């Protein structure tokens, strides 16, 4: 990797990464007396695939929840597109163009795949209730435009065959894919993936990896993901943050991180004397 400048850098595979999009500054998050995150800073750049890794209980999910507004840190600042973000609720974060998936899948089980993906468009629907009742034409045009985006996403993730199926009936791997589709339908500036490959078999993992790379490539979406599987992470991501016990112990390209002694210790364990 070339030197990182303010404007960005060129990745090993020749993709151009832009300026800083999101910056976490000295984030500390406590639950009562327990510190989940201690003084962590890192940035996410335009167009990059950024991974957060670490052993169980390292605070990775907490970090993702801070970015998406589900947790509000006691200390530290979140900067998005060069502006300091005031503490906000998750739905407001979503309205800013940050979409996410969940580790344990949070889909609308009672709805069809199509309806689930359509909810991803809610932030793009402008017509209010009254105008929908009065200006039927305008609401219809909007609905059609939204449907186009949704169908594109459905094609892209190869879930056409199940579009009318109620989500509750789908197997786990497909649910994960529908959740990704819903997040993508929002055409997010930043896509947060919480363990997108957890609980998947090798084949499903390969599919998911391909989709993540394709999303980044095709739509230029900036992606931040949490993952357990070191192999997958190293293949996918441009830069990696490593966390352990709520602290940042490494940050850099996959190669840099792989050779970082702290990271090796955290993953393999180290003898304390």
């Amino acid at each position, binding site marked *: 990797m070339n030197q990182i400048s303010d404007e960005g850098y060129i990745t090993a595979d020749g993709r151009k990464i832009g300026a800083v999009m999101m910056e976490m500054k000295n984030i500390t998050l406590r639950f009562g007396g327990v510190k989940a995150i201690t003084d962590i800073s890192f940035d996410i750049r335009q167009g990059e695939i950024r991974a957060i890794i670490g052993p169980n209980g390292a605070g990775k999910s907490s970090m993702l929840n801070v970015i998406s507004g*589900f947790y509000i840190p006691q200390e530290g600042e979140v900067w998005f597109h060069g502006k300091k973000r005031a503490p906000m609720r*998750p739905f407001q974060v979503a309205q800013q163009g940050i979409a*996410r998936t969940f580790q344990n899948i949070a889909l*609308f089980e009672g*709805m069809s795949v199509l309806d689930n993906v359509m*909810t991803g468009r*809610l*932030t793009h629907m402008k*017509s209010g*209730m009254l105008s929908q009742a009065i200006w039927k034409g305008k609401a219809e045009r909007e609905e059609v435009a939204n449907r186009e985006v949704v169908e594109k996403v459905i094609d892209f993730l190869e879930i056409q065959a199940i579009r009318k199926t109620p989500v509750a009936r789908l197997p786990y791997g497909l649910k994960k894919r529908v959740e990704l589709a819903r997040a993508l339908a929002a055409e997010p500036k930043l896509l947060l993936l919480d363990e997108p490959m957890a609980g998947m078999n090798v084949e499903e993992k390969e599919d998911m990896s391909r989709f993540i790379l394709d999303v980044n490539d095709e739509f230029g979406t900036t992606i931040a993901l949490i993952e357990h599987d070191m192999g997958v992470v190293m293949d996918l991501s441009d830069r990696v943050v490593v966390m352990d016990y709520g602290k940042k112990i490494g940050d850099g390209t996959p190669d840099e991180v792989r050779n970082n002694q702290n990271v090796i210790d955290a993953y393999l364990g180290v003898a304390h004397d």
Partner: protein
Amino acid sequence: MPDQLLFGMEVFLNGLMAGVLYALVALGFVLIYKASGVFNYAQGVMALFAALTLVGIMEGQVPFAHLINATLGTEIHHFGWHLPGIVAILLTMGVMVLLAWAVNHFVMRHLVNQEPIILFMATIGLAYFMEGFGDLMWGSDIKKLDVGLPQGMSTVIDEVTYGWFGYGFFIDNLDIVATVIAALLVVALTIFSQYSKQGRALRAVADDHQAALSVGISLKFIWVLVWSIAGFVALVAGIMWGTKSGVQFSLSLIALKALPVLMLGGFTSIPGAIVGGLIIGVGEKLFEFIVGPMVGGATENWFAYVLALLFLVFRPQGLFGEKIIERV
């Protein structure tokens, strides 16, 4: 045709009409339960409160008149105006939206993620509070409500059926209006929930709070919206019941009749609320007509509850409710 059968048919039709009114109250329960998982015990009192407010606004009654007069020693009771029904209905709807906001702001907001039983208890408290508050605001006397809906026997039906059977059916015009309005309400609610942005958001919230937040839905907005819609349904129910039997505090007891309706129809189904209401309405009238004379009458008081009990034993999810499956 034998007289007995004709009379039975008339009873059946009247039962259907009564069922529509039960269904209207049950509908309000289903709406809130679906969207927020709260069984709103106060739905019946909301109908009463809406009707009281409507009469109060229409007749230009001064709210809290007793309280004001007692503390200030004044003698004011009326503003001295009479508003047309439609204006009063719109104003009352405004009050119901305010109420929805207040319920969320002062009660429900603080109980997020609590057990359903706690939310249920909160709505019981709410019911008693609103009953007392309505009393304090508008007085406890029985009021006449007339927003200009047609009342009395439908001469058209009387004449037509007389022409057919040589026996004129007695059907109240108001019941016919109530049926038409209930049908329109169900159609409107279905279109709203299936095709509008807010309807989709509402279904999303009903399904999964966390997921709803992550796609940019404000839970607070949706909850106020749902309670407002339930308030609107309560207003419609309040107008119908109030016009039929006067606005009085026993109106809130009608809510209890909605319970068996819900057990029949299922707590999560809008069509279920309607069908359940009709079954109870018809069942209760026919049962009284056929079995009543044998047991000395007054079966209408308990028939609905016994029917609900049977359903609880044999089909706990109701006719249209989601089947309860416990995965282990």
